[in-house]
């Protein structure tokens, strides 16, 4: 009965590869987010979707492409992975944009 789930939990890959991280929420929320947490624990928003529509798109390289097939899912695809992409990526969801966000457990991405 996990509220916000992410797969995989760990992802180790080589530079130049393409990878995807999946996120699902069963809270009935209409807004979902992707955050990046770097090694210094800074948390930065990357994208936000409301009812499958992109509403926040921060200054993120084009190699990152979010996809929301429905309100309960927000996946993150990353092309041509670089060393600097190594981080923990968190998915979150909320009911409306101003309400409390609930976070997934994170995906630790390591690019070698």
């Amino acid at each position, binding site marked *: 009965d996990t509220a916000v789930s992410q797969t995989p939990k760990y992802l180790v890959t080589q530079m130049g590869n393409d990878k995807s991280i999946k996120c699902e929420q069963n809270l009935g929320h209409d807004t979902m987010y992707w955050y990046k947490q770097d090694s210094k*624990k*800074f948390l930065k*928003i990357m994208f936000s979707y409301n009812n499958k529509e992109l509403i*926040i798109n921060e200054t993120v390289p084009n190699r990152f492409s979010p996809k929301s097939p429905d309100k309960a899912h927000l996946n993150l695809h990353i092309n041509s992975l670089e060393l600097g992409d190594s981080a923990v990526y968190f998915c979150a969801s909320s009911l409306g*944009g101003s309400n*409390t966000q609930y976070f*997934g*457990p994170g995906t630790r991405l390591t690019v070698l």
Partner: protein
Amino acid sequence: AQSVAQPEDQVNVAEGNPLTVKCTYSVSGNPYLFWYVQYPNRGLQFLLKYITGDNLVKGSYGFEAEFNKSQTSFHLKKPSALVSDSALYFCAVRDIASSASKIIFGSGTRLSIRP
């Protein structure tokens, strides 16, 4: 533009003593303010929020925070710290005047409670 500052990277407190984790913010309109806690290798967990109303907000695990508009602060407090409170704490703000639903997180404060 909205911003949030947590001036202390680390706060050390003895178990049983009161604790305060500081947070100040800057928004052009009125703020929504949040506190989250992150335990090692976990996602962020919501602790409490201020939207409107009473300036003293009570949250999970005995934590509370006081909204101070004149000082633009939203410090997190607990009267008696537990060792299990040791974690990374994030303050966050959203500008109500902003059309986007973006929440800005502070840099985090590591709270360490010694037995």
